[in-house]
């Protein structure tokens, strides 16, 4: 009835349990590193890397993405492209946001308030 034999399933089940324990350990790491003061940027990067590792374990093993067919990879490649495009396009609009005018997110001079006040 099924192409998959019982020993194959047994092997898969033991892998699923290993992934489960790995995810639990990664969750402890996620919470632990949040209590280490390493600065905003490094804190975000490290938290994202741990989340990416956990996400890859879930997608790769539980969603069987490590052994999928080309059509699924194709759908995901298109999704990844549009996902990145959407994030980038929206984030690029930050310069038009009000409320900050320094550092990497400085509002261009022509939009700055003192210059606008001089014009009037």
């Amino acid at each position: 009835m099924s192409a998959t034999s019982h020993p194959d399933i047994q092997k898969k089940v033991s892998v699923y349990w290993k992934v489960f324990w790995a995810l639990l350990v990664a969750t402890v790491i996620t919470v632990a590193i949040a209590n280490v003061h390493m600065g905003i940027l490094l804190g975000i990067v490290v938290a994202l890397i741990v989340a990416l590792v956990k996400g890859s374990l879930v997608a790769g093993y539980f969603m069987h993405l490590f052994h999928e067919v080309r059509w699924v990879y194709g759908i995901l490649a298109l999704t990844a492209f549009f996902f990145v495009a959407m994030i980038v396009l929206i984030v690029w609009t930050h310069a038009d946001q009000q409320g900050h005018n320094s550092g990497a997110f400085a509002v261009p001079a022509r939009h700055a308030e003192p210059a606008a006040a001089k014009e009037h």
Partner: protein
Amino acid sequence: MSAEIAIPYNDTERPDTGLYNAKLGVWLFLASEVMLFGALFSSYILLRVASDRWEHGADILNVPLATLNTVVLIASSVTMVLSWAALKAHNFARYRRCMGLTFLAGVIFLIVKYIEYSGKLGHGLVPATSTFMAIYFTMTGLHALHVIGGMIVNGYLLGPGAKMWQTEPRRFTNRVEVAGLYWHFVDLVWIFLFPTLYLLPGKGM
């Protein structure tokens, strides 16, 4: 004449794609889900970089409860994939146990979420309190709706939908597999939501 037209590739893979219908459909659906949550994550980034002040989630949110919910969802992902593996091994009793545990984990997740939300609302922390609280309620609320949606499907496959195991076992196994794909995706979203909202450092506070 009552000729029934059988829809092909319900339980077998289509030779050219290597996928049965439901699997192709659910992956396309998940692609649209990635864009839905992606839009909210990019909104989070934009609101955060454009703000002078941003709360440190751990200062106002309940990290122990959220950690508990992370463990609950991870455990439910394992029981979900084990329920599919049980069907592959033709063990229907084990399927029912594993799927029952998956459903139970969904209930626990929602109870914990209810306790968490009540705590926030009880302290006057509502979406209008700050931009951070607005995006917190939007993202976790949408995620909780997805958990409810998954529980409806899992509940059907555990209850009335399980009759299909007697008549079309392969098709039923496929249904459990694609319901699992969705459930793991919901887990995946939470894996990113948890550090983003609860743990990332704030600024200007």
